[in-house]
């Protein structure tokens, strides 16, 4: 398998606080990867490690087979759009493109100009005068015109209105078709990613909760409801992600590769949002457990 991003025990600490703890994953090439999790989960830290803006405190990360940000060649292969799609307010669009051409050896000026024209933007316009959606499109253009093999975007649509959000994701998907780049993008909203991503990484509280092909994740997770039962009564290969019980009924979210055949359970599929929520609430519970024990 060709991996676009591989992490082994990857950790990053700020002072005493771990922003990312022992993250191990291998993301295959050619995917559109969604990194989801609540604010402060470690998404930005992971992306900054991937583009070489941060160095690991422990563990290792390799991107497209190289160490992030170490050589000019490596920098040229990865395009990065930082959070809130920053641009230089005082520079015009044309000046942004010239700056891009000057700083990137693999710059494709025609691609950049075509994209700006296709968006109906005036190259003479100052970036400070652009709407949020247009600024995001300019930032995407700059990242795409260097012809990267991997495009990394940190919360690119968080601050956009629904229409601009849709237009941005349309543009991004066109880039994937045209240039075959792999994409890693983060969001705290699953709904934003559901249509565009085919691989999911869930981070909560600095830890990786689950990562995998979305189709595979959806087909291997089930919601079981039935008469109240102990989780110990489940087959061994069922991994319980979440459970809730009333005095009569049990509801479980399980990961199981084989179909659940026990007739006592009624089995439902989960949608992506439910799946992510199940992992998020599990992480929160695990986090709380030791504190409660200390108090008692």
């Amino acid at each position, binding site marked *: 398998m060709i991996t676009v991003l591989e992490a082994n025990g990857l950790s990053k600490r700020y002072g005493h606080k771990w922003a990312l703890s022992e993250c191990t994953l291998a993301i295959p090439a050619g995917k*559109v990867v969604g990194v989801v999790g609540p604010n402060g989960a470690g998404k930005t830290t992971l992306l900054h490690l991937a583009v070489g803006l941060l160095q690991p405190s422990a563990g290792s990360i390799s991107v497209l087979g190289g160490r992030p940000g170490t050589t000019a060649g490596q920098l040229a292969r990865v395009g990065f759009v930082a959070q809130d799609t920053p641009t230089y307010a005082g520079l015009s669009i044309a000046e942004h493109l010239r700056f891009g051409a000057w700083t990137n050896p693999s710059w494709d000026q025609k691609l950049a100009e075509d994209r700006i024209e296709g968006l109906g933007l005036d190259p003479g316009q100052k970036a400070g005068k652009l709407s949020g959606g247009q600024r995001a499109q300019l930032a995407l253009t700059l990242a795409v015109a260097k012809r990267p093999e991997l495009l990394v975007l940190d919360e690119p649509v968080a601050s956009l209105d629904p229409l601009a959000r*849709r237009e941005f*994701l*349309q543009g991004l*998907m*066109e880039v*994937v*078709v*045209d240039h075959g780049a792999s994409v890693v993008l983060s969001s705290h909203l699953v*709904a934003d990613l*559901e*249509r*565009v*991503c*085919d691989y999911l990484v869930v981070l909560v509280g600095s830890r990786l909760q689950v990562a995998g092909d979305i*189709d595979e994740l*959806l087909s291997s997770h089930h919601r079981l409801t039935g008469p109240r039962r102990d989780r110990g009564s489940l087959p061994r290969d069922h991994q319980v992600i979440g459970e809730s019980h009333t005095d009569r009924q049990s509801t479980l979210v399980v990961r199981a590769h084989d179909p659940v055949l026990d007739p006592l359970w009624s089995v439902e*599929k989960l*949608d992506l949002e439910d799946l992510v929520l199940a992992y998020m609430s599990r992480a929160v519970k695990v986090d709380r457990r030791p504190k409660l024990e200390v108090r008692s």
Partner: protein
Amino acid sequence: MIEFHLDARSGVAPYQQVVQQVRHALRLGLIEVGDQLPTVKEVVASLAINPNTVLKAYKELENLGLAAARPGIGTFVTKTLSDDSLAAHGPLRQDLQRWLSKARRAGLGEESIEALFRDVVRASSAQGVA
């Protein structure tokens, strides 16, 4: 050319929605043998979905024998699902519309109409009438 749309709340996987919409259009004679389906880029650009979703849907249509890909050109319809009954669609549609206005006059809402329709279809196919 047909245009796809996605219903996020339907619970049906996006690629299956694309397949269904092609089947539906074939069934109604909206597209015919030889017609080109939208290119992956066109679908992606209008729906903002992952290209692999479209590829998967088109692959499925190929497996069903309904479409074939011509490398570098596009995907084309190779089989139709409409049959001789297509000619009868017009009059049937009119009858149905008349029935619908009658149902609305009787005070049935969209949901009641759909429920009733489905129930009758189900009941009659159970009897082996349909």
